[in-house]
């Protein structure tokens, strides 16, 4: 893992060119940002800190809660008068934070472990990000009684709309073939996702 030189890692990300063209610090991103209205969060400040490129400042930023508030709606993009994308900058910062193990210093950053074990494992085990059998009504009371009915009677409910539910072949929530799951698994291996997941698991263990 390439540690140190955080500014270099940020600038080398392929998304950087789109994320930060020439911020003039106007603050429109903060004005439109749903996260700024809910948390003590200000994407304008983040864009400012990045341009300072100071390693000490960047280290503090990447191990703070600040980079984990953004909801990734990207409402900032169309409104920025310089076509910057603070939401994409956040993606870069989170990526560099995880690669360098800094995310585990933040209580919000440490939530990556739970997300990895839920969404990540869903992807490689089912071929879907989410699946009716894995959205437990007891853990999701906000989903309401209709969802509980759907989840508890999934074969009958989903089967009404497609007889091929959870079966091989095309259709609604088809069972993804072993060959396709194997291809996904190899993609995750060769592109470095599994190495990233090891980093998330190991950072948790070292706390």
């Amino acid at each position: 893992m390439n540690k140190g030189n955080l500014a270099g890692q940020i600038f080398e990300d392929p998304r950087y060119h789109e994320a930060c063209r020439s911020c003039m610090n106007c603050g429109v991103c903060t004005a439109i940002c749903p996260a700024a209205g809910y948390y003590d969060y200000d994407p304008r400040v983040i864009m400012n800190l990045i341009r300072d490129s100071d390693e000490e400042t960047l280290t503090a930023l990447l191990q703070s809660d600040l980079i984990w508030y953004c909801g990734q709606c990207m409402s900032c993009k169309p409104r920025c008068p310089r076509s910057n994308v603070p939401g994409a900058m956040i993606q870069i910062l989170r990526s560099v934070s995880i690669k360098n193990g800094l995310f585990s210093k933040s209580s919000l950053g440490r939530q990556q472990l739970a997300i990895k074990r839920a969404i990540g494992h869903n992807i490689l085990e089912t071929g879907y990000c989410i699946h009716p059998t894995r959205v437990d009504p007891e853990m999701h009371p906000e989903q309401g009684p209709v969802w509980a009915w759907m989840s508890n009677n999934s074969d009958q409910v989903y089967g009404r709309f497609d007889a091929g539910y959870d079966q091989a072949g095309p259709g609604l929530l088809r069972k993804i073939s072993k060959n396709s799951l194997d291809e996904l698994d190899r993609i995750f291996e060769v592109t470095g996702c599994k190495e990233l997941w090891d980093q998330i698991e190991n950072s948790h263990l070292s706390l």
Partner: protein
Amino acid sequence: MSKYWKEYQKEIADDNYFYVRSCIRQNFFPGAENLFIDILRNKLGKTVFEDADHTTCTGIGYHTDIVPLETTMTVVSRQFALMMEKGYENLVVSCVTSFGLYSEILDMWKHNPELKKKIAGYLAEATGRKFMEPKNMVHASDILYKYRNDIAAIAKHKLVNRHTGEPLKIVDHIGCHYAKTFPERGVGGAEFPQVLTGLITAWGGQTVDYPERRHCCGFGFRNYLVQENRGYSIAQSKIKLESMKPYEPDLMVANCPGCAMFLDRWQYTLEETEGSIYGARGRKIPVVTHEELAGMVLGYDPWEIGLQTHQVEVEDLLDKIGIDYNPELKYADRKGNLIGEPEMIQHHLC
């Protein structure tokens, strides 16, 4: 294509579509995608191919930062390869998160050929498949927009209140990743989105303009998926619901499956936690997807297209439009046997 406002229009292929399904839409609106395919094949006479081997695009994993950019790109390149292997080049995407992600990836490959070459190498190494790109890529709601007048010509119902003769007041909610990320890829761009307004007006309804019309539904990815963060998510939907309440909308329509789900579910939660109700006459506001809206005007059976899988009940809306339904089959299985009803369904009347 109109000769005016060309920068707000987009090329939408006429036929021969390769359809990729949505994780969220399949889970929460299980009748919607088969309905869309049926409309295209049997009402509009189009060819739609669906490949059993396509998988999630990993979009939720990408936007929760547990799946790196290059992994997501390689998974998406596999979807494109499957399409080209089957002889198709026009991609139709069900999910708005996926659509935004595909748009981002195609744009990055255009501007970064070295990255594109790297992904082609990953694809070959992991799957043995050949790297290719689609000729045309649209969201499923774009197709309905393109053929909205053809649908209107064969529609059984109009989006009109049959009791008053007035057009239904309809909130259009465009998923953020439909056009905010790449405005040129959305009909009407990010500031003047027409993709759902076009459907509503072509089918007899009236759109509702309200202050927070373009505010995010509040999914927020990690802000919903992690249980302790969900206050963010419900707070954003509440902003929208409070803003639209004075206009007394008859329904909402969303082209993003996540948005449709949250605007539906958070109404239930806000009522349970605060006693707040945002529709007229003490009733909640039904939320439908673009496919379901088309299915309603085309006269499909509401329970066969999945309107019973919404938390907010739709019977009032069906009655306003004049759509027949059999209450006894609402919670039935494929053979008509009653599955059992959801518990705690509440009816709020004046």
